[in-house]
């Protein structure tokens, strides 16, 4: 996972890389919650995301709820496999996917 902040830390891009599963989600969640403080414009870039389980979906939903209160959240570069999961779970409606 990589973080890139611009605009005095108000805009942040998070690149999820490789696999997000039940083994690494606790660490990812902890880092995200720390880094997102003060961010009003959050973007998730999923170009290099190869695998995400429901553990990862839970955290994306949690972040969407959090960002609704403090700004905006956008999801970019969703591949076909991940999009299938977003469709089945109704996340296509809940997340702002561009």
């Amino acid at each position, binding site marked *: 996972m990589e973080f890139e902040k611009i605009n005095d830390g108000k805009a942040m891009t998070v690149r999820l890389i490789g696999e997000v*599963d*039940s*083994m690494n989600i606790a660490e990812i969640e902890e880092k995200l919650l720390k880094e997102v403080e003060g961010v009003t414009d959050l973007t998730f870039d999923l170009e290099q995301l*190869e*695998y995400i*389980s*429901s*553990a990862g*979906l*839970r955290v994306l*939903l*949690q972040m*969407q*709820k959090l960002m*609704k209160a403090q700004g905006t959240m956008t999801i970019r570069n969703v591949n076909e*496999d991940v999009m299938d*999961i977003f469709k*089945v*779970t*109704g996340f296509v*409606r*809940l997340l702002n996917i561009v």
Partner: protein
Amino acid sequence: MREITLDATRENLAAVFTFLQEALTECGASKKVIRQIKLCVEEIYINIVNYAYTPAVGQARITFDSSGSPGGSPPLRAIISFIDSGKPYDPLAKEDPDIGLDLDDTPIGGLGIFLVKETMDDVRYEYTDGQNIFTMEKIIDVQTN
């Protein structure tokens, strides 16, 4: 048939993934179907980790079998079973989540089993001789390149 028996811990998910990857690769499964099945295996295995023996640790046995033939009739099917001796727990008894709710009303979590039901071609649960047995089947698309 292949099988693996291990302590049902979160860390051992890596060994479960390796077991699955080897079995499905040997079948010639496509990368897409491997990813789909992997997702379902994680959900069911982590359920055992979280609920079967907690707070103690017990064992989980996972078996992999296949039937049919690639592109034939009947088609190639993967049959994966999860067996534990923990508390009786039927993951299928849970009602499906309402995926039409607004963001504010959508609860966090509860999507795992739903994804398994939507992804696999058949899922079933039984409790026999003190064992939870969860079985799932999927028709395998084979790698074409």
